[in-house]
């Protein structure tokens, strides 16, 4: 609320006809985080972007086509399409932003097929336009420009990244053009509802589509780093240790021998031990990967972290994390190297627990906290809940993290209720935010 007031006050003091300054003022007062910038840009375009004085959607759709109809006779539809493609390719090659924007406008008018009143999202129109233009092929041609027989791997890579960047810039222009037309058709408020994006921390891991999954992967590293920093500081700040007499005496010298400043030894609270046992089958696999990444990113908060993965066979993967300082790399290797299929490749929690108990239970101590990650879908194998009871009796605490929504628990072949009596807590853990707050609370 106060940010809105700040924004209004800022606008009072500047010339609001100066469009770039107007936008900068709004952004500087309303956006307080780097992650929110793109959301601001989208919302700004929906509400404030320059509208060309071209009336409504129908007029806009009609205009370019009518001009091309004038230009040629029978062949005009096809030739104009090819001409547009050539024009675009030239614009991309020269990196001429104005020509690219012009091509974007024409392409949307010709290919998107936006009809007034149709309740379809912008993503569909974007897809249509891109496909008709065959942007993939164009990107390939662009990246091949300037390369020859003697080009080495570096030159090829640079060329392909540069081509990709230009194509992405063009796609953004197309998207912006489509959005403008939709706003013209439906009005700004309606559009604002539909372009609302979820922050990566709130995406449901189990139901993420490919793009959301990419966002999650990108968000994971900075998130785990921030968590590590926050926990490290919290640890240092906790209760002060005992008085440090030597230090106190030294600093009292500057105040004439009077100990005005009392110094303490730093606190040294005990660090917990963590054991993670994760189901890596099917849809639960990505959730397991994120959790393992997060736990190992903050492994300095724990005196020891051991990780195990299973489907119907159980395998320890602690050594993969020990060998690399990058949790993401270790997580990738799990898929390749862990030996988790023993029988038929369907999750068997009972078998996994009993394998764990046989080989590792003797190494569990009263300082250990055990985390089990999974949806408890046992494929109708025997539950062996007594094994879990035994494990619980040896450790400090046992938690179960379930990425499914609570309403799905115990439906179908999920036997969570057989295991939950032996757990200190069973938590629904569907988003990175929930995961982060749980893992942070472990320390």
């Amino acid at each position, binding site marked *: 609320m*106060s*940010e809105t007031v*700040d924004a209004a*006050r*800022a606008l*009072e*003091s*500047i010339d609001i006809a100066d469009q*770039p*300054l107007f936008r*900068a*003022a709004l*952004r*500087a*007062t309303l*956006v*307080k*985080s*780097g992650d929110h*910038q793109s959301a601001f840009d989208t919302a700004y375009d929906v509400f404030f972007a320059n509208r060309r004085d071209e009336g409504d959607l129908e007029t806009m759709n009609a205009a370019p086509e009518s001009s091309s109809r004038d230009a040629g006779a029978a062949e005009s539809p096809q030739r104009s399409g090819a001409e547009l493609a050539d024009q675009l390719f030239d614009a991309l090659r020269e990196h001429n932003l104005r020509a690219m924007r012009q091509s974007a406008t024409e392409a949307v008018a010709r290919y998107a097929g936006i009809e007034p009143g149709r309740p379809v999202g912008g993503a569909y129109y974007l897809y249509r336009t891109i496909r008709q233009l065959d942007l993939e092929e164009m990107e390939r041609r662009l990246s091949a420009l300037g390369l020859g027989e003697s080009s*080495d*791997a*570096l030159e090829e*890579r*640079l060329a392909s*990244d*540069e081509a990709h*960047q230009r194509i992405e810039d063009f796609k953004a222009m197309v998207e912006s053009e489509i959005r403008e037309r939709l706003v013209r058709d439906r009005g700004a408020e309606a559009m604002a509802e539909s372009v609302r994006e979820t922050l990566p921390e709130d995406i449901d891991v189990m139901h993420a589509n490919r793009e959301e999954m990419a966002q999650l*992967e*990108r968000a994971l*590293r*900075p998130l785990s*780093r*921030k968590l590590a*920093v*926050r926990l490290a*500081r919290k640890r*240092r*700040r906790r209760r002060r240790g005992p008085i440090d007499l030597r230090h106190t005496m030294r600093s009292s010298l*500057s*105040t*004439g021998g009077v100990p*005005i400043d009392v110094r303490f030894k730093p606190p040294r609270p005990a660090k917990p031990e963590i054991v993670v046992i994760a189901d890596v089958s099917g849809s639960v696999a990505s959730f397991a990967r994120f959790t393992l990444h997060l736990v190992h990113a903050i492994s300095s908060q724990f005196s020891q972290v051991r990780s195990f993965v299973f489907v119907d066979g159980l395998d320890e993967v602690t050594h993969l994390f020990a060998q*690399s*300082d*990058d949790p*993401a*790399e270790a997580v990738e290797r799990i898929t390749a190297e862990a030996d988790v299929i023993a029988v038929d490749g369907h999750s068997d929690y009972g078998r996994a627990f009993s394998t764990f108990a046989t080989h590792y239970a003797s190494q569990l101590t009263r300082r250990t906290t055990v985390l089990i990650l999974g949806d408890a879908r046992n494929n109708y194998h025997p539950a062996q809940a007594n094994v879990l009871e035994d494990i619980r009796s040896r450790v400090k605490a046992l938690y179960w993290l379930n990425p499914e929504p609570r309403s799905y628990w115990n439906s179908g072949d999920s036997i969570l209720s057989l295991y939950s009596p032996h757990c200190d807590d069973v938590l629904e853990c569907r988003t990175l935010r929930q995961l982060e707050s749980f893992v942070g609370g472990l320390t």
Partner: protein
Amino acid sequence: MSALDPREELTQRLGLAEVPPVRFASPDQLRTALAAHDYLSSDAISSVTFLADRLAKPVLVEGPAGTGKTALAKAVADSLGARLIRLQCYEGLDESKALYEWNYRKQLLRIQAGRPEGSAEVWSELEEDIFAEEFLLARPLLEAITATDPVVLLIDEVDRVELETEALLLEILSEYQVSIPELGTLRARQIPMVFLTSNNTRELSEALKRRCLYLHVGYPDVERERDIIISRVPGIATALAEQIAQVVRTLRLMDLKKSPSVSETLDWARTLVILGREELGEDLVVETLHILLKYQSDIDKATREIFGRAS
């Protein structure tokens, strides 16, 4: 009640004689002034800095390390001919290092020296005496407030300070004044320009963000990075600068533990100039990659992905 211009309002509150003139006429003029001191700004940087001056608000500059946040404050100070007062934040920063501290030793000496033979000094006189401004050690924040010459205050890496310690800054940032129990409230004698920088290692408090204009400085795009290289590395060929910027862009697209920052790009560019190279080749890049990437796992990953071989 009509709304007052923020500068006028602040002038009234601080009790200044007259409203200080606006430092920059427009974002473009600001950009030119900074460029004269070798700082190339983007549109966002120049408009937000202009707004900060116009609205008399501090700027919170947030972004990855090595992207020119501190350099911005320095360049602004240089272009204004102002003194740069810098408070480097760290965990454990407290009032005595940031705001002020009483000079205990001097006070003790004064108390001991002020006892003429035989008579006991009147306490009330002594008290007034030892709590005077001459016994006050002004730390950066107070120094900035009480300065009469033009100053730019830089509060560097404010994300290193703990959440509770941010409270120290709040009074200064919104009211440009410091309250000292024994002395009273000291108000600023001018409207200083204030920059705060953060490397985004933690979320800053809402109270702090509210008092500032927000500026996010990310990694520059290829064109701007090339221009920065040309401006900061004398004698470099344009084609090489462009290639360097492209390589760095490629590295930033990869999922690395630590992406190369602008300062690392400049280090690399300078190294290449010293080595006398005019263009990049596969071997050269592999040999010098450690200047850009500071983790061995990142170097291995980059070498594998771009060149398809082990480093």
